[in-house]
């Protein structure tokens, strides 16, 4: 019945569009513009009031010295100078870039290798089970992942237990409580959060690559590495860009994991901009400085994401 209806509609639509042409064009477009904006209004209103306006205000606050209660004083770019000169604040930005290695680079490189190794695994049961396991870290809240790993990395945790079992007991330490190992340990948590997702996404991408390319390459005697390099890698450009975008943003803007696992400590050894913004704004009442740091963080994210987006779009056009 529905096809019937569609056909009838289609038949009418020809005469209809003619009739529509006859209507005064301006009146029609004005009413449909109005209707369109009415449709946009509710969602846009929520967005403008609770997202866009606060961003504008962050920019505004960042030029002031304000403790959140008393009158604020204009300080020009002083807050930004502080962000780029204060060792703790600048260090937090540095830490977030260090985390990119663990949140982003290692999961994507390893994900690529694993995804191309399991190219032939098509057994449905295996792949469903594997996907569920690999996705679990992404489904739970980041804060919960931090709790799980805090226990794994504790003095009595499984990590030290495994080290002892391998005869490396002397390296056991309280991983998150040690100045020298804390930041890398946070990185390992991020690695755990991102790896499975990268594998599944890249694996899905490999599924979309033309099989005959691999056949042709094998016939030409190309080895596994050269297939990875010349067929898989170029074929996954879009997926890699997507993985990069998501994981880099997760690293630079990390909050949940660090806040729950270390609070930025010990000392400032795992301090990241997200936690620093929270601390400055809500425990030290330095709203202006917090806003300046937040703004710098946003610009950094946009600077990294912008070129990656072009890479994704470039792939879609091709």
């Amino acid at each position, binding site marked *: 019945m529905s096809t019937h209806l569609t056909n009838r509609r289609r038949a009418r639509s020809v005469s209809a569009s003619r009739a529509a042409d006859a209507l005064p064009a301006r009146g029609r477009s004005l009413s449909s513009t109005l209707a369109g904006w009415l449709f946009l209004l509710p969602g846009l209103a929520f*967005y403008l009031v609770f997202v866009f306006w606060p961003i504008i205000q962050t920019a505004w606050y960042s030029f002031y010295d304000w403790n959140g209660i008393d009158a604020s004083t204009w300080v020009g770019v002083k807050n930004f100078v502080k962000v780029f000169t204060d060792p703790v604040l600048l260090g937090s930005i540095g830490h977030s870039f260090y985390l990119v290695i663990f949140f982003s680079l290692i999961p994507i490189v390893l994900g690529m290798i694993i995804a191309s190794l*399991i190219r032939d*695994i098509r057994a449905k049961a295996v792949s469903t089970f594997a996907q569920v396991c690999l996705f679990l870290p992404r489904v739970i809240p980041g804060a919960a992942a931090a709790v799980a790993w805090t226990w*794994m990395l504790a003095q009595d945790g499984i990590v030290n237990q495994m080290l002892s079992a391998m005869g490396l007991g002397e390296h056991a330490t309280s991983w998150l409580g040690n100045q020298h190992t804390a930041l890398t340990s946070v990185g390992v948590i991020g690695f755990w959060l991102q790896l499975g997702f990268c594998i599944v996404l890249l694996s899905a991408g490999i599924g979309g690559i033309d099989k005959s390319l691999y056949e042709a390459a094998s016939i030409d005697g190309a080895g596994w590495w050269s297939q990875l390099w010349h067929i898989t890698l170029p074929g996954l450009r879009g997926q890699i860009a997507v993985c990069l975008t998501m994981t880099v943003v997760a690293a630079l803007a990390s909050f949940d994991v660090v806040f729950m696992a270390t609070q930025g400590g010990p000392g400032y050894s795992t301090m990241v901009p997200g936690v620093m913004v929270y601390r400055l704004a809500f425990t030290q009442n330095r709203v202006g400085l917090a806003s300046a740091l937040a703004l710098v963080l946003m610009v950094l994210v946009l600077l990294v994401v912008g070129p990656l987006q072009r890479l994704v779009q470039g792939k879609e056009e091709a």
Partner: protein
Amino acid sequence: MKQSLSVRVLGNLTLAVTIIFSILPFVSMFSAAVQPQGSMPHGIQFTAHPHWENFAAAWKVANITPLLISSAILVLVVVPVVLICSAMGGYAMGSLHVKGGWIAYGLLFVGLTLPFEVLVTPLYYEIQSMGLLNTRWALILPMIGLNMPFGMVWMQAYFSQMPKDLIEAASIDGANHFRIFRSIQLPLVVPALSSLGILTFLATWNQFLLAVVLIDDPTKRTMAGALQSFVGQYSTDVVLLNAGSLLIMAPTMILFIFLQRYFIKAMLDGSVKG
């Protein structure tokens, strides 16, 4: 064309290792959670007599019942509103090609990869001046706004793929914009909407930063946000801490395992299109 045997063996092996790595933290939490209360567990240990009653105790001290209700209220308000607003906005931009729609699209695009830290401070003072601090609205209203960029851009992509003559035909039949939207276009984007629903559910249920900042009372927070106060109180009690944390994680994990096909599809599509 099969890959060589050695590659396949290596592939299966690495996959197995990765799977074990992915679920190890859960196993380690579970192992600690079923040890006798008050004991100091070590790593992962086998227990002949798991202390299941720890979960009952943790259920009480972690306030799971009020938390479940609170999170459910949040999700039940946020997800439908996000779906309706996204569908309407996506329709306006993708199907109606509303004049000046690019302004809306541009504004929303800014919000797509936004770190929440950027807006949390002003948001706090905004919510405070509205008198909503420490109420559920403090979380509900911003969560709707924060889901809009992705939601509207996502729906826009689907509506713009819709055949044009469908709208034209209906508008000749005398249907107004709202009827075209409701009875003709909306049914066609149900799959996209259900994926968006899943992603919005996850984003809301797992929201941490806003919950911690905007609501002091843990029982009005999200499950994730409540974890912060729970860990603060029981950080020394490893057994109870792990049992409680597992309970807090359980709802999403159970839902995910039952609906895994839809979750995985939504998360993969969501990342590629978003």
